[in-house]
C-alpha cells in the first residue's frame, strides 16, 4: 500500500485535533500557544502535501505565509503573556478577569 494523499490528510487532522485538545484542556497560556503552533503546522503539512500532489507551488507559498503569520502571532502572544502574568505567582488564563464585568 503506497502512501497516498489520504494518509497525509489523516495525519494532519490527527495533529490538528491534538492541538485543539491542548487549547481546550490546558490552562497554561504557554502550552495553549504551543498547541496553536501545532495546529498551524498541521495546516502547513496539508498545504505542502497538496502542493506535491498537484505539482503546483502555490501551496508551498501559502505554507510560507502561514509560517510568517505564526512567527508574528507567537511574538505578540508571548509579549501579552509576559505583560499579563509578570506580577502573578501562577500562570493560568482563568485568573485573568479584568474584563469579567
Amino acid at each position: 500500500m503506497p502512501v497516498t494523499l489520504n494518509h497525509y490528510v489523516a495525519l494532519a487532522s490527527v495533529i490538528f485535533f491534538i492541538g485543539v485538545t491542548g487549547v481546550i484542556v490546558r490552562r497554561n497560556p504557554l502550552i495553549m500557544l504551543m498547541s496553536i503552533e501545532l495546529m498551524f503546522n498541521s495546516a502547513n503539512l496539508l498545504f505542502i502535501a497538496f502542493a506535491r500532489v498537484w505539482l503546483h507551488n502555490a501551496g508551498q507559498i501559502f505554507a510560507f505565509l502561514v509560517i510568517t503569520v505564526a512567527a508574528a502571532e507567537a511574538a505578540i502572544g508571548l509579549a501579552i503573556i509576559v505583560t499579563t502574568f509578570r506580577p502573578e505567582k501562577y500562570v493560568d488564563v482563568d485568573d485573568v478577569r479584568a474584563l469579567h464585568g
Partner: protein
Amino acid sequence: MIFFWFLAAILIASAVWTISASKPVYSVVALLLNFAVLAVLYLTLSAEFLAVIQIIVYSGAILVLFVFVIALLSSGVTPFATGPNRLPNIWMPASVVVLAAFGFLIYALSQTSAMQARPSGPVGSAAVFGSVADFGRALFTVQLLPFEVTALILMVAVIGVITLGGEQMRDADSSRQQAAADRSMREAILREGGD
C-alpha cells in the same frame, strides 16, 4: 512507506507529549522534536526550502522565544510546575467533543469531491518542482503581492510588541521618577527642618 509510518508515529507521539507535559519546558522539547520530524516530512514531499525554513524559523526563533519567556516567568518565587494543571477535570468532556469534531471532519472529507479536483493555475513539472530556485521564482514574480503583505504583517507584529513592552517600561520609568521626586522632596523638608 515504513519511513512514513515511522515519521507519523513520532509526530503524533511528540504532539501528545506537547499537550500533556507537566512543565512547559518539556512541552518545548516535545515541540522541537515535532518540528524536526515535520521538516523531514517536508523533505520527502520535495519542499526543501520550507524544510530549511521550518528548522530556522520554528526551531531557531519561535521555540527560543518560548524558552526565554519560560525562563522569565518562572524566575519568581513559586515554581512553575505547581501552577494549576487541571488536565484530569475536563479531560473526558473535552476528548468527547474533540473526537466528535474529528469524526465530523473525516465524514465531511469522505463526502466532498474537493480531493479529486484539479488546480486551475499553471502546473509545474515534477523535475524542478519544490527546488529553491522554483520556489523563489514563484515568490518574486507570480506571488509578489502576498510576499509584500507578509512584510507588512511582520511590521505590525514588531510595532505591537514594542507597544506592549514599552508600556511596561514607561510604568517602571514613571514609578522610578516618582520615587526620585519623593526622595528629593523629603530631603528638602529635612534640610529646612534642620536649618
